[in-house]
């Protein structure tokens, strides 16, 4: 669904995907120095992160599911 995986074995921790994501889905994990998916529900499937990642560590798929709506949430 949308952004699916940032492969920690490939990620070199350059931070490019973080600054490339227009909707702030990705953040750096300071402990591991790897990029992590923080807010996947806000992924707009634009592939900016994929296109700018120098080592092709990110997988984004075309499908996305939407949360169920109830009375108060």
């Amino acid at each position, binding site marked *: 669904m949308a952004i699916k995986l940032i492969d920690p074995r490939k990620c070199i921790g350059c931070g490019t995907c973080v*600054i490339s994501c*227009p909707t702030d889905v990705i953040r750096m994990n300071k402990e591991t120095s790897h990029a992590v998916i923080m807010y996947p529900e806000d992924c707009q499937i634009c592939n900016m992160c994929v296109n700018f990642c120098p080592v092709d560590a990110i997988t984004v798929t075309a499908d996305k599911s939407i949360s169920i709506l109830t009375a108060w949430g």
Partner: protein
Amino acid sequence: MQKITALSGPKLNRRGFLTATGLAATAFAMPSFLAGCSGYAENLGVTSVAALSASGEETRVSTDVLVIGGGMAGVFAAVRAKAAGLDVTLVDKGTVGRSGATPWANTFSVFDEAEGDDRAEWISGVRASSEYVNNLDWLDQMLDESKARWEDINEWGMLEENVQHPSLVLRDKLLENEINLIERTMITTLLTQDDDGERRVVGAMGFSIDGEAAVTILAKATIMAAGAGSFKAPGFPIQSLTSDGDAMAYKVGAVISGKEWIDFHFTSAENPASCWSQWSGMWDSGVGKMSQVFTAGMTLDGAFAKHTGEETQSSSPGGERPSGPPPDAEGGEAPSGPPPDAENGEGSSGLPAGQSQGEQVLGAATGLGIHKAEGIWPINMQGASNIPGLYAAGDGLASMLCGSSYVGLGFSLSGSAVQGAVVGDGAAAYASTVLAPTLSDDEIAAFQEAMFAPRQRESGFSPAWVTQVMQNTMFPYYVLFVKEQARLEAALSTITFLREHIVPQLTAQDAHELKLAHETANMLVNAEMKLRASLFRTESRGTHYREDYPARNDDEWLAWVLLQMDADGQMAVTKEAIPDAWKPDLSIPYVERYVNRFPGELEYLGLASG
């Protein structure tokens, strides 16, 4: 530039500390697919303004000209204001070159008489496609200056084949010009002060989406270049654009216009949320020059046919796609490809190059209007708003370069460049004549308190839930595509309830959600504007179709709809007539004056034959 760092303040309270460690833990666990729509709930990240200012470095900047938004318009505005010898600061909620609409555009309209472009032909094409609610002065400006701006971006290196991405060149240009750049900072508030009873904009406030510290920028002139926005609709890559500029400007008393026009991009039926499936083609080519103007606006025959069950007279063969210009009249078409046929609008596949080929559904940009025909209403040709100190440029300026429909490929990008430059000059000239702001620390603290309010609520509604309710209200085609009084009023009652009752209860657990909270509130302002403007314009024109008023009414509606907050805090709607000289020739019979037909139009006018 002056920078003040706030280091004092109480230590983190236990709750704030727990939140901070909790966040770190989530970062480890990668809580994919957890959050979603929690709706009304306890705010697990609740904190206080004091704790927030203790945890990060607050930024305070004083500058001459502040530019909000670093797309094509903002970058031109900043570069020109800097060239006037002023101190310039540009702030963006994302990173310049990777945010907003600009990275996706690949055509740039250039009017060039030396290449054989005919001025009269362009003007008449724009007027007809706009259905006469465009502004001919802003069109003149674009015709005069688009070539020079094209030469500028060429000189900047934006057109070179070896650039990683053309719009990254815009960021380099800011740095090269020593423009103070503040990125990943969500601007939420225009700062105002009263000088002798006159309210003036003196900068803006926001917060860093990384550190969450407040960012306060005091400025003599502020240029809103924050683009347009949608309701985070699926399939159009502008979900970071939520009409923030319009909402912020509206709240300080600025006049907003163009809200009844609607953009109607498509998305793929198979994976409607995927912008990449739809738009990957835009990345295959660089930015190319376009010299082409349409002869008529768009129609939504496919959507109308689904609603009425019958084809309309101007229907395109498939019945699925708008006739007239291509569905993505602003992009889609690769600049190297053959120019689209303005009559049929589509290539042989029925889709412009760069878009996916599967079944397409409408509504990818719901919430967006027509580029260059919505936003802050200018009172002069340099983009000044009715509030002193506030300027606007590009997609956030209701210049009415276009009117009720798109007018040609590439107008949006080149319009942003042209307008950015003139507005940069205008704001710089204004900034040179006024004194620096004198906002007190207490006043700044009050603005901060309001900005961080969702972080301080113990419980309330999540922005994601409110956004979803808003989308469910605004997305169905029968609200904004096929409009009718009772349905518009029904939607309006939900939207005003959300604004009045739910927005004051929005919560945010962290900086990311605080951004969403402000975006949600801004989208609701945009939704209310779209509904009120649509109700007010009791006719149909261009992309505005009222089922209950299915024809143009030139006696009443050769006019623009203006929205402004009244003394009671309610949204007031008025209209401003188009200058007589810009009206169509009313002696031409109606059906020839306007070639596109709306369902029910001829019957309504008593012109139906047979």
